[in-house]
């Protein structure tokens, strides 16, 4: 096996190890539990409300959108924090100092961040099926759609997280440069309420970014076809979903390695030390 293929394999092992560590860590379990309780609590309060103009219940319509929002948040903010932290604490530099280490590191991140959405989905989906009726309209075909929408959505959005993580000046700034934009995007992308309630130009902006399409794709998977009347064009626009998410994914796959390579070049012990000093000095 060539050294670079060997490094990819080691990276995959690294990603799996870190995933297992994350699932076992009370800190991460706490995060999943917190988001799970929040979402389920909201849906429970509105369990008997009907969506205006349809015979669908609020939990059925809100659940796929919220799942899309959480996945989007996870695959952008997760890698952004991980990368910013790895730059600051020397994890990246360690990998730069070993042969093909960077290749291994990024393979590991890719696997870890992809796997991380699984516990996030499970902690909400499993109780949701027990608590509410009509969660999933189409059975097998619905799950198939969930799978491809999630994979494509992740490919479209994770590069954004990696690029943010590579460019933010410090971990402390991920809140401003990573979390805030994603929350704003979630607010205009039809995650919490239909995007049609907003001004026309906001709808245009929302449809440029992948989060809206991730939400739309998830709704198309979970809801009956009759619910498509609630959407902008009155149908699920499956082809458009594939095209927009695919375009973002291709752009991400082309641009991200360049950004990461530039970032890796700048890694040095003095940069790590400067980051350490900055992290110790919160207020200046």
């Amino acid at each position: 096996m060539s050294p670079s293929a060997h490094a990819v394999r080691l990276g995959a092992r690294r990603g799996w190890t870190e995933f297992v560590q994350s699932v076992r860590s009370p800190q991460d379990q706490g995060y999943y539990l917190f988001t799970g309780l929040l979402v389920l609590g909201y849906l429970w309060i509105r369990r008997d409300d009907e969506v205006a103009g349809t015979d669908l219940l609020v939990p059925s319509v809100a659940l796929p959108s919220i799942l899309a929002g959480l996945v989007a948040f996870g695959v952008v903010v997760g890698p952004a924090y991980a990368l910013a932290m790895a730059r600051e604490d020397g994890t990246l530099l360690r990998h730069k100092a070993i042969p093909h280490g960077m290749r291994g590191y990024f393979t590991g991140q890719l696997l870890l961040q992809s796997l991380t959405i699984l516990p996030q989905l499970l902690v909400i989906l499993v109780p949701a099926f027990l608590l509410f009726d009509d969660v999933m309209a189409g059975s097998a075909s619905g799950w198939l759609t969930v799978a491809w929408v999630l994979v494509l959505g992740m490919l479209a959005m994770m590069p954004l997280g990696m690029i943010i993580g590579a460019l933010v000046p410090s971990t402390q700034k991920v809140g401003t440069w990573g979390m805030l934009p994603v929350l704003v995007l979630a607010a205009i992308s039809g995650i919490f309420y239909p995007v049609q309630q907003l001004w026309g130009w906001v709808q245009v902006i929302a449809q440029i970014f992948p989060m809206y399409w991730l939400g739309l794709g998830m709704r198309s998977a979970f809801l009956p076809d009759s619910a498509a009347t609630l959407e902008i064009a009155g149908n699920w626009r499956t082809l458009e979903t594939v095209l927009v998410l695919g375009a973002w994914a291709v752009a991400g796959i082309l641009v991200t390695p360049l950004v990461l390579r530039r970032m890796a070049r700048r890694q040095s012990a003095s940069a790590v030390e400067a980051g350490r000093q900055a992290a110790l000095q919160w207020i200046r």
Partner: protein
Amino acid sequence: MTNTVVAVRGLRMRYGARDVLAEVDFEVCQGEVVCLLGPNGAGKTTTIEILEGFRIRTAGDVEVLGEDPAHAGEDWRARVGVVLQSWRDHPRWTPRSLLAQLGAYYAPYATAVVPRPIAVAELLDMVGLAEAADQRIVTLSGGQRRRLDVAVGIVGRPELLFLDEPTAGFDPHARREFHDLVHHLSDLEHTTILLTTHDLDEAEKLADRILILAEGRIVAAGSAEQLARRVAGTAEVRWSRAGETFVHATDDATAFVRGLLLDHGDEVADLEVRRPSLEDTYIALVHRQERAAGEAGAFMEAAR
């Protein structure tokens, strides 16, 4: 002919308008332990980072293991070890799991003569981390963390090892153990070692050769004794006679003492010959260089 592992000629590094490294020349031969000594801000870390391939120089020729580190590939990387100072990376890993993971990258570079990586259990013993091997890294003490840093640096059995301020924050016991480890690597593994420190005692104990870096230049090079002789060739002789204390500086302390005893015999008491220590040498050299730089600066100011 000895094998040159590191060759630096006319190395310059400029940040903005300031030359951090003005003109650095030196060589390191195979199997040597060379110590780069200098005050804070002298450019030690910058020099090491250029040699590690982590920083791009402004000018000059640099060759490390036969290649330019700025363009060297992964095969070169596998032969070089870097000890980094970590502070909170990999908190959820254990020393054993992390060393196994990072060491495995070196497996494709093993040869019949050089087995790579070093087996984890052996490595843990070598750096004195065997007892903490299965503890989560976040729970390690500062000293244990630094041992782990050293272990990660040598897991690939490097031909050349870089250590930047390796014992900063070590207690005396840990420092002694670290010095033993460096001797082990140098004597048994024949690793060439380049380290920086501002601890003179450490430089004297570890290094075959010391390079003193001040104001971006190597101002002196040699073994601790050579350096001491070079700067202040004079030794100080102190004695007392009839209740009076005398001090005399001389180039040939032995001859002077012989004369002294011949002349005064039993009257001489409290005889003491003090050779300049590395510390005296270092302070003298650095001070001289700083004064020269200061004068050059003043001259430039005046010329304007």
